[in-house]
């Protein structure tokens, strides 16, 4: 199984600023994803982080608001831009290999509070 770390673990940001979240995997993986968990809610997929190409966004999420980078097979970043209180959520990174029976492993999450 892959071990995933995220930085920062939590942050408090002011409205209008941006936060970049880092996701590091301890092994090379094919697939990396970013999810959002709003307070008291389930997880919603934001986008697939594609290595070497632009991320693929789910309906309701756009690149200008959630730019994503994936420079290699072990690392990805998610930026949440132009923050508003509605962006207060836990953001989770996941990773896995399609050849590993589709198991996805999750990082501990980044708890973002926007004031």
């Amino acid at each position: 199984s892959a071990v995933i770390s995220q930085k920062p673990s939590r942050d408090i940001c002011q409205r209008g600023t941006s936060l970049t979240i880092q996701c590091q995997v301890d092994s090379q993986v094919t697939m990396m994803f970013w999810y959002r968990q709003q307070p008291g809610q389930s997880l919603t997929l934001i986008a697939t982080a594609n290595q070497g190409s632009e991320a693929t966004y789910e309906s309701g999420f756009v690149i200008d608001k959630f730019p994503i980078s994936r420079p290699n097979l072990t690392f990805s970043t998610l930026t949440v831009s132009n923050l508003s209180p509605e962006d207060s959520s836990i953001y989770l990174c996941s990773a896995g290999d399609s050849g590993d029976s589709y198991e996805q492993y999750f990082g501990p999450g980044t708890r973002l509070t926007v004031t």
Partner: protein
Amino acid sequence: AQSVAQPEDQVNVAEGNPLTVKCTYSVSGNPYLFWYVQYPNRGLQFLLKYITGDNLVKGSYGFEAEFNKSQTSFHLKKPSALVSDSALYFCAVGDSWGKLQFGAGTQVVVTP
């Protein structure tokens, strides 16, 4: 389109009693089904999965799940619940690319 439903917001069970957390799914094609658990202030932990094969899947921490194609269900079970099993449980359906769609979650409360 695929979806997954967890009909119970919360399940209460006494320690030592059997625990069941319900999940139903809707997919076109073969389902990839998963159970995850989330403890307070911690990330998601993988419990078990069904991709193909035996309908009874055994996972971590003594949990198991039964895949029922005719009822489109994938209920999570544990024969004897522990207080430490109290957590938020998510059922999820995945596609061949690894993307997951989660149910709303079921809070499990195990009382001593």
